[in-house]
Structure formats: C-alpha cells, structure tokens
C-alpha cells in the first residue's frame, strides 16, 4: 500500500505499453506521435499479451522467473521489436495532429466530455481498487496463489499448479500477477488490485483508439461509457481474475478483424493474432472465442478467399502453437483435459433447450447489463438493413456463435446445473464477452447506418 508499490506498478504497465507500441510500430509503422498516442491502448494490450505468451512458453520449458528476467524480457522484447521495425524500414514518428481526420468543434467537445466522464469514473475505480482486500473465491483459491507461487518459487510449482483448484487454467494471469508482485517489491495482495485497474484503463484506451478514426465521437463514447458502468461489468473490473482480460483481448481482436474485413490492412491481423494468442492462454474459453472469431472471418471473407484465408489460417496456427505447450505441460503432470463430459450429442434435447434458455435469460437480464444487449441487437439489425451488411453480418454471426458457445458450455458439462448462480455456473461471467462485444460494435454499426443515410460510402 505504499507509494513505491504504486509507482512500481505504474512503471511496469508503462513498460507493457512501450513493448506493445514498439511491436505495433514494427508491424504497422506509426507516422505521427498522435498515432502512437491514439493506439497506445492497443499497444498496451499487445504488450501484456505478448509478455504473457512468451513467459508461458519460458515457464513451461523451465526458465526461472525473477525480477531481472522480467526486466530483461521487457527490454529485450522492445529492442527486438525496434530492430525489426528498423529492418522493415519504419520511420520514426514525427509531428502531431491527424491529417486524415478534421474534427469539428462539436466532435472535440463530445470527445472532451467522453474522456472527462471516463476519467472521472476510472479515478473513482482507482480509489476503490487501491485498498481492496482479496475477497472473490476464485481469486484467493487459485488465481492469486498461482501468481504467488511463480513469484516465490520462480516457476510452475508442481504442488500449487497441480493440486489447487482449476489446475488446467492457463497461466497468463498468474504470470501478470507475479510480475506485478516483483514491480511492487512484495506479494502485496491489496495494492496489486491496481494491476487490474491498469488493464481496464488499457482496454478503454484500446477500444477508443481503434474506433476513433472510424466513427464519429457522438457514436463512440455513449456505448463505451455505458458498458463500463453496467453493474456486472463495473463490479468485475476490480476482481483479480482472468475473466475481464480474456474478454478484452477477444473483443479488441474481434474489432480488429472486423476492420480488417473492411480495409484489408495486414497489421490488423498481426495484432489480432497476438491478442487471440494471449486470450487462449488467459482462460480456456479464450480459445473458443478466438476460434469463433476466425471461423466467422473465414466465412465473411469467402469472396476473396485466395488472399484472405491463408492469412486467417496463419493467425489460427499461431494461436494454436502458442496454446499447445501449456496443454502439454499439464498433460505431462497427469492432469486431465479440458473437454466437457458431453462434448458431442450425448446430452438430452431438454438440457440443450434449457441451456439456450438460460443463456438468453442471462443475456437479457437488465439488472446485469442494463439495455446494452437490446440496443446492440437493434444496432445489428439496423446495420443489416441500412448499413454495412458485411460488417453487420460478421458481428451478428460472431455474437450468435459466442452466444451458442455459452449455451454449449452449460449443455456439455453435465455437472454444471442450469442456473445463473455464478458460484456453480459460469454463464454470467461468460456473457460479459457478448455484452462487451455488442457494446463496442455499436459505434461501428451505427456509424455505417449514419453514413448510408447521409449518402456516404458505408
């Protein structure tokens, strides 16, 4: 709870942002400092994902984890990205301003209000997180102990990683926890809640930065702010578990895929690959989310499959390669797989219908998500009729597939009861991904309708 611990966390998260921004510069180039600033949130998430993915592989092969290892990996990764950028001929950013966008004074005012309201809310969340004790069961029972084990024992300690609950859950979040402990100078399980606050700030910055050039400010900020304030999302942001991170990595990756379908810029795919690889090592459903996004992108790009499919398959291959070593590690330690009891058609039709009904009830529960899912669905419908149909089709299919995936989880694990009780069924936590994706899709969908109505190219 000291200033030193907070400064350590701030420095660590700054280093994630520098690492990821360097990666972004290497794969995309950042012509102006304003581009670097606008995409700093995306860079931060890429840095977090890349760091976690690399350290997962290093821990699996037995490389000891320590303070110097953290520093060297962050510095080495950044240096490698910069050298790659130089070899690719990227130029140093220069100048400010955004020649591709001439914002009206109204747009500037809306942006200022959006940033101010978001900042005010995040500041309140900072104060709430700063002195937060460890309360959530999953957090104290296994997520944080795994982070402590990496911090104290320097690796995937066999006792902790094979006998504590959730032994097959991937280690990316415990790695981030252990890194935060190093940055703070101790396993301070109170101040480290701020690590999750930094992730929330990075997520907001990433989404706003990605969408900034594609939607007007008055369509960007209301849905983004609303999803931050709905009860189940706002309360989840301070909980030191993997749920928020896996949802954020998936949703930002899906946004990049949606934009890639629109403009075909290759760097978006490379960035999505890093984020999806991180999601696959954050939580088990991260692989399901990534697979759903890639399958829908394959279908959406059918018309230009010769150029698009090899790239999408390469993204899928990278995600699979990143996910494999951890699965081999726990298999080699005698742990069973993650497959459900009724993965196929073994369950009853009644259970399937009950699972679907439960997923729908949870999705449209206004006490959890306010009106976000309803408005998002209306936005999808409007865009399918009046807006960019390819974009709307991609997002509608992805939302539908992830929704069905949630019902499938309830259906196929026979030991999960049909209930929204979070202590025995993960459907509420799972549905955060759908709500978040719906909310951040709304600006893109509504902007395409607006442009269509205004007579611009969708």
């Amino acid at each position, binding site marked *: 709870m000291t200033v030193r611990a907070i400064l350590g966390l701030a420095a660590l998260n700054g280093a994630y942002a520098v690492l990821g921004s360097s990666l972004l510069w290497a794969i995309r180039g950042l012509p102006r400092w304003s581009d670097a600033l606008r995409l700093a949130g995306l860079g931060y998430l890429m840095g977090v994902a890349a760091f976690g993915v690399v350290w997962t592989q290093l821990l699996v092969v037995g490389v000891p984890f320590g303070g110097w290892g953290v520093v060297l990996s962050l510095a080495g990764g950044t240096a490698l990205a910069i050298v790659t950028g130089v070899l690719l001929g990227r130029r140093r950013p220069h100048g400010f301003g955004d020649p591709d966008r001439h914002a009206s004074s109204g747009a500037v005012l809306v942006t200022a209000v959006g940033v101010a309201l978001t900042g005010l809310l995040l500041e309140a969340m900072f104060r709430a997180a700063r002195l*937060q004790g460890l309360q959530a069961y999953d957090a*104290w029972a296994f997520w944080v102990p795994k982070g402590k084990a990496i911090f104290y024992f320097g690796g995937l300690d066999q006792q902790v990683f094979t006998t504590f609950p959730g032994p097959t859950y991937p280690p990316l979040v415990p790695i981030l926890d252990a890194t935060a402990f190093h940055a703070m100078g101790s396993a301070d*399980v109170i101040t480290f809640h701020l690590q999750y606050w930094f992730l929330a700030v990075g997520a907001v910055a990433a989404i706003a930065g990605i969408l900034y050039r594609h939607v007007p400010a008055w369509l960007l900020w*209301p849905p983004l*702010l*609303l999803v931050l*304030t709905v009860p189940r999302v706002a309360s989840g942001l301070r909980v030191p578990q993997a749920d928020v991170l896996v949802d954020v990595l998936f949703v930002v990756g899906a946004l990049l895929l949606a934009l890639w379908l629109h403009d075909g810029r290759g760097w978006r795919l490379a960035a999505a690959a890093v984020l999806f690889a991180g999601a696959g090592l954050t939580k088990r459903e991260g692989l399901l989310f990534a697979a759903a996004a890639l399958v829908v992108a394959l279908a959406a790009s059918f018309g230009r499959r010769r150029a698009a499919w090899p790239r999408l398959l390469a993204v899928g291959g990278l995600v699979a390669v990143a996910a494999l070593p951890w699965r081999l590690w726990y298999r080699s330690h005698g742990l069973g797989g993650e497959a459900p009891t009724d993965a196929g058609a073994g369950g009853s039709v009644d259970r399937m219908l009950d699972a679907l009904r439960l997923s729908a009830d949870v999705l449209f529960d206004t006490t959890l998500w306010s009106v976000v899912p309803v408005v998002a669905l*209306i936005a999808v419908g409007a865009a399918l009729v009046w807006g960019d149909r390819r974009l709307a089709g991609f997002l509608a299919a992805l939302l539908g597939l992830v929704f069905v995936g949630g019902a499938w989880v309830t259906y196929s694990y026979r030991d999960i009861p049909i209930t929204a009780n979070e202590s025995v069924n993960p459907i509420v936590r799972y549905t955060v991904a759908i709500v978040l994706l719906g909310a951040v899709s709304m600006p893109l969908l509504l902007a395409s309708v607006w442009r269509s109505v205004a007579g611009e190219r969708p």
Partner: protein
Amino acid sequence: MAFCLAVTLVALAVQYTDAFRDANDTARANAALDLIDRKVGAGNSVFPDQQLLVEALGLIPSDESFAVSVGPPQPGWTELTADSAEPFLRSFLLPRRIDPNAPWIVCLACDRAAYPGADPVWEGEDGLSILRREL
C-alpha cells in the same frame, strides 16, 4: 439509429451515477478497514478470529511447512470454517507449503492426541490453536 443513441444516453444517465456512487462507496468502505482486515480479506468470513492468521504468519517461518487439522465445528465458527479453512490457509500462508507431516499444525478444534509430542505455541478461542512438533 437515433432511437439506439437516445436509449443509450438515458441508460447512461442512470448507470453512470450508480457506478460512480458504487465505486466511491467501495473506496470509502475499504479505507475504513484496518490493515489486517484488508490483508485477511475473505479470511474474515472463513475464520472466527483473524488472530489465528496473524499468528500463523508470524510464527511459521516462510521456508517451513504446515498442516491443517480440522475437528468438529465449534459454536463460534462461521458456516465456511470447516470446509474452507484448509484451502484458505494454503493460499494465504504461501510461500509456506502445506504438508501433512509438517512440524507446524494449524489446529481448528482438532484431536491433539493425533499429534503426539506437539505443543501449543498459540491458543485462541473457539478451538483455534497453532501446534509445533519436533520431527
């Protein structure tokens, strides 16, 4: 489109104030707790007396191991004590490892006869104690 935006803005007006108030209330509640309450966290719901956790942290060296032995529930225990004491302790006391043959025994109304030669080094109420034995 106008409908979506209007509904979003109305919902935002309601939700924003709720979320802001909730974050402030949480910050205030957290600030009102003392250091031990924050450090123990969920353990306050598991154990009848947080002193056991404080003593365990102080008495058991960080490179040694401990066992947890739970006996019949006592009147002062919470409904979580019997089932959650061991999982909480093995998380809370890291890097101390849990081991049934450890020199330290965190005893919750346990059968002390099962640990011959073990002496209490701390004893609290509701059957809570910490034992130490020579191995």
